Each structure stands twice: as structure tokens, then as C-alpha cells.
């Protein structure tokens, strides 16, 4: 999988590159709009991560060129502009998804996976991690033969964590994808923390192996060991 990152902020570009390479993506980084423009025109990528505010050439311009060439490469836009108009403009110009800075790297990775997965039907019927098993059809969760009694929200959160197992899920991702709270200025962290704590009581407390971990300052991860 070849990913192009067009981002002028070196630290952000490096963090993304390191993370993506750790997940075995083939990563190219362009530090200016011009370079991104050139690379997009001469090489082919499976996905483009594009910063909108770039020196010399606007991200939107890179995006428009890409689409004019008839390429359907998924594009994930990163930007500090977060008004509805900016978002609409970005998506209208042909972007597939949108992330507002500051973002959690974990979330960028999740979005990239989702974009690359897009179009492939989801055939998963059960999700599993160690002895924890979730049946998506009967909506039953079993750990080591014991049936767990989860509320609807807890089930959704656990499903989300299982789908992203081994990877960090941020509070922001949960707020948006589970609670459908899109406004970023919402006091919602407590609700998420309490829900996770309750989930942990049911999923982990009775067992020796802990699966649900908190990554301080980032979010949560489901896995046998602390990610």
C-alpha cells in the first residue's frame, strides 16, 4: 500500500510517516504543495493524506488536479480550518474524508484503514480477542464461556474497540462514532470514561488477563498487552 503524505509541518509529517511505516505502508512525504503536485502527477498512490494549507500550492489545487486526471485515489484532508464551509469545500473538491487539527495520530490511522477498506463488503460475523468473543448477529458477548451482560452503548463501544483491536482508540473517535457527537466543544469525556470503566468491570474485572487498557493522554486500546 503506497501512501503519499503532503504536509509541510515536519514534526507532523514524521509522526505520520513513522506510524504508517510501522504498519507496513510504503510512505512518501511531500513537504510542499508543489512537490505533492509533482508526485501526484507522476506516481500512483493508494491513498493521499493532504494538508490543506501548504506553502506555494494550495492543498485543494493538488486535490483538484488529482481528480481531473480521473484518479479515484482516496484522499484524507488534514487542516486547521474547521468551519462547516471549509469542510464542505474540501469534500466538494473531491476529498473522501476530513480531519481537523489537532488530531490524534491513532485517528488518522483508523481513518486511513477505513478509506482503504471502503468498497469491500464487511463479512465479519464475529469479533475475537483472546478468550473474548463477540457475535455480531446474535449480539452476544462471551468471555471464557461466561456470557457478559452489556448495555447497548457498552456493546457498541466494545465492538468498536474490537474492530480496532491492538490499536489506540481516542475519546474523540468514540464520541463521534458511538455517541454521534460531532461538535468538538462538547463536555463528553466523562461519559466516555465512565462507560469504559463500566465495560472494564464486566469484561476484565472477573478475569486475570486484562484486555481493556487506558493509554494515558491518548485513549483506549483492546489487546492482550498494553499497546
Amino acid at each position, binding site marked *: 500500500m503506497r501512501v503519499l503524505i503532503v504536509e509541510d509541518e515536519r514534526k507532523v509529517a514524521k509522526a505520520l510517516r513513522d506510524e504508517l511505516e510501522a504498519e507496513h505502508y510504503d510512505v512518501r512525504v511531500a513537504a510542499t504543495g508543489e512537490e505533492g503536485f509533482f508526485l501526484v502527477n507522476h506516481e500512483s498512490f493508494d491513498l493521499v493524506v493532504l494538508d490543506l494549507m501548504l506553502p506555494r500550492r494550495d492543498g485543494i489545487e493538488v486535490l483538484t488536479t488529482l481528480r481531473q486526471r480521473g484518479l479515484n485515489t482516496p484522499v484524507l484532508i488534514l487542516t486547521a480550518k474547521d468551519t462547516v464551509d471549509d469542510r464542505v469545500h474540501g469534500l466538494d473538491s473531491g476529498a473522501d474524508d476530513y480531519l481537523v487539527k*489537532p488530531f490524534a495520530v491513532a485517528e488518522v490511522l483508523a481513518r486511513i484503514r477505513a478509506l482503504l477498506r471502503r468498497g469491500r463488503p464487511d463479512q465479519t460475523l464475529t469479533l475475537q480477542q483472546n478468550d473474548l468473543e463477540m457475535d455480531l448477529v446474535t449480539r452476544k458477548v462471551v468471555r471464557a464461556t461466561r456470557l457478559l451482560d452489556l448495555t447497548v*452503548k457498552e456493546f457498541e463501544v466494545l465492538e468498536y474497540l474490537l474492530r480496532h483491536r491492538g490499536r489506540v482508540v481516542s475519546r474523540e473517535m468514540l464520541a463521534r462514532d458511538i455517541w454521534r*457527537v460531532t461538535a468538538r*466543544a462538547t*463536555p463528553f469525556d*466523562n461519559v466516555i470514561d465512565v462507560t469504559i470503566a463500566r465495560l472494564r468491570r464486566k469484561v476484565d474485572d472477573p478475569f486475570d488477563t486484562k484486555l481493556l487498557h487506558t493509554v*494515558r493522554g491518548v485513549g483506549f486500546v483492546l489487546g492482550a498487552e498494553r499497546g
Partner: protein
Amino acid sequence: MRLGPPSLRARLTLWHAGVLALVICAFSVGVFVFVRARLYGALDQQIGHDLATIEKVYREETGDLGELDHRMAITLFEVVEGGTVIYRTRGWPPATTTPYRTGTMADTSHRIAVARDATAVRETLRTLAIILAIGVPCAIGLAIAGGYFLAGRLLAPVGAMAETARRITAESLTARLPVANPRDEFGRLASVFNDTLSRLHEAFEQLRRFTADASHELRTPLTAMRSVGEVALQRTLNVAEYREVIGSILEEVDRLTGLVENLLTLTRAESGRIPLARDVVDLGELATSVSEHFRVLAEEKEQTLRVGSIAYIKAECDPAILRLGLINLLHNAIKYTPHRGTISVQVKAGSPGEAAIEVRDTGPGIPTVDRTRIFERFYRVDGGRSRDTGGVGLGLAIARWAVEANGGRIEVESEETKGSLFRIVLPSSPAD
């Protein structure tokens, strides 16, 4: 010192003098015409009288006509009968060098003509004309001078106000214009200006407080990040400790992010740059779904969270923004209500044309002095900035904006130690 805008003074004077000149001229012409008519009228009456006397003498005693001259002082007349002059005084016909007023009386048989000297009338009229010709310009001149003086007097307060206003800057917003008479026009103007100054002063004060609070809130996490990072760099730590340090820094980043998000939301809201959607929103549904989100928090504190909605109450507003407002209110209620307290969310019809969502808690209540200020950004009742309760004091500011943007208002009722009631009042949408 300039007395206000000179053009205004000049305009006032001109208008004043112009109107006065018009009035004086019209009056003078009127007087002249009237006096002239009266004087000639009197003369004509005298002539009529003379004619009647001559007629009488002519009919009764034609020979006495000659005596009329010195007996009746009728000095100029002639009587003609059938083309023959019967009597004619000396000097008839009247000379054209002096003005004469004449009158005739004709019959089939005879004709009588009389003339009287009008020199006195002419003289009187001329004198009057001269008096008027000198008096009118003088009066107009006086009117201009007086008008100019009066306009200056009248406009002097404006100049003084302008001078005072010029001296008032952002630094001296406490200064006020003197109000001499609050009931006259200038007094009202000064009062209005003073009110504006008060509001400006208040706005500047708020901004000042806001800047101080915002920098405090922004610096706190920055300081924490910096010191945690510096300390960590000075020592050799193991992996777990490094994780701890980085996690701690990331937590502060989260706090900063949240703060910036909230501030941006408020700033955009205040500059009116958040476009509002208009939908018919079922308030009961909204209250229920928001409450369900927060139920876990209430349960965790063993609080009772009740939601009551009597009927289908709807309001036309932006659902996402109204939701944000309610989320902030409910979050506050749960946060400040102690363990085993009760929070109830009620959707009501309220007064006609209004719909209300009430959030009632059994928290500590809000002291009266703070009640009006709790919606200010960063304002906190306890005055302290404890980080345990979380948040930075922007929740209610956001809630108020969210409700007001939707054409509603937030009301607060509170009793210390008993609890508070926050009421969102919205214009209701007619039931369909």
C-alpha cells in the same frame, strides 16, 4: 475653541434670519398696503361727502355754490349742466404738478366733479415707506446677529460634549458627559451617549477579565507540559516512567485542545459566523436523548436522573446547537449535584408561544451575586479554579449562546443549598 460644527451654526442662523426676514417683509408690505388703503379711503369718503354737499346746494340754491369754498372748505370743484359750466372754482381743472384725488357724480342733466389735494396722504405714505425701508433691513440684520448668537448658545453644549467625548479613550471609559438637564434634547443625547459609554466600559472590562482568564487557562496546561517535560529530560527514567511523562503531557494537550475548541466556538458564535439550521425539533425527544447520554454519569454518582415530557412540544431551531446547549446544562447539573442527588429534565409548554426545557438539580445552588455572571466566559461561582471539577467555565457561556442563537433565552432560579433550575425558553413551533 470651535463651537460645534460651524456649518450647522451658519445654517441655523440663515434659516432663522430667512424666516424672520420673510415674516418682516410680509408684515411691512401688509402695513403699507393697509395704511395706504385707509388714507385714500378717508380722502375718498371726504370727496363723496363734498359731492353730496355740492349736489344739495346745486339742487336747492345754485347761487350759493360760490360760498361753498370758504364755508365748507370745498376749494376745487365744477358743476356742468347739459354741456354748460354752471360753476367752476378758481384753479379748476386741478394742476397736474400736485397730486389730486378727484371724484365725479354724473346725472342725465348734470355732472359734478370735485378734487382734493392728496399731498398730505402722499407724504405720510412716503414717510412710512422710508421708515419701513430702513427698519426692515435693520430688523433682518438684528435677526441674523441674534440668530447667530442664539445658535452659538444652543450649540455650545454640543461642542463641549464633543470635547469631552474626544478626551474619553479606552483608558478613561469611566468619564461621563455632564448632563445639565436630563429632559431636554441635549440632556437626552448626553444620557444616551453615557449609556453607550457604560456599555462600552462593561464590554472592555469583560474583555479584560476574559483575556486574563484565558491566558491563565492557557498557561496552566502549557506550564504543566513544560515542567513535566523538563523534569523528565533531566533524569534517566525507565520505559514505564517515560510513558507516564508522555501521557501526562498528552493529557495537558487534550485540555488545551478542548479549551481552544471552546474558545473558537464562542468566538465564532459571537461574530455570528456559525450558520444556523432551521428545523422543527421535538424537545422531548432531544431532552430524552441527551439525558440518556449522561445517564451513566448520573448512575455513577448514584443520582436520580428523571426526564419528563408531557406532550409533543416542538420548537424551530438548530438541533445540533440546541443540543450542545442542553448538553452543557445537564453536564453542569450532574457535575455540581452531590452523590444521591436528583436531576430532573422537564419539557414544558410554558407561556403561550413558548416552549421550555427545565434542568433542575439538587446541587449547592448559586449565590444571588453570581447569578447574573455565571454565563460569562470563565466565570466560576467559587472563584477558585479547581481542576478537580473539570472544565474551565465556558460551558454556561456556550449554553447561553446556543439558546440565544436559536432565538431563546436561559433563565436561572436558584436557592442556596437547595439547588438550581436552569430553564431554556424557546419560541415554540405551532403543533402540526
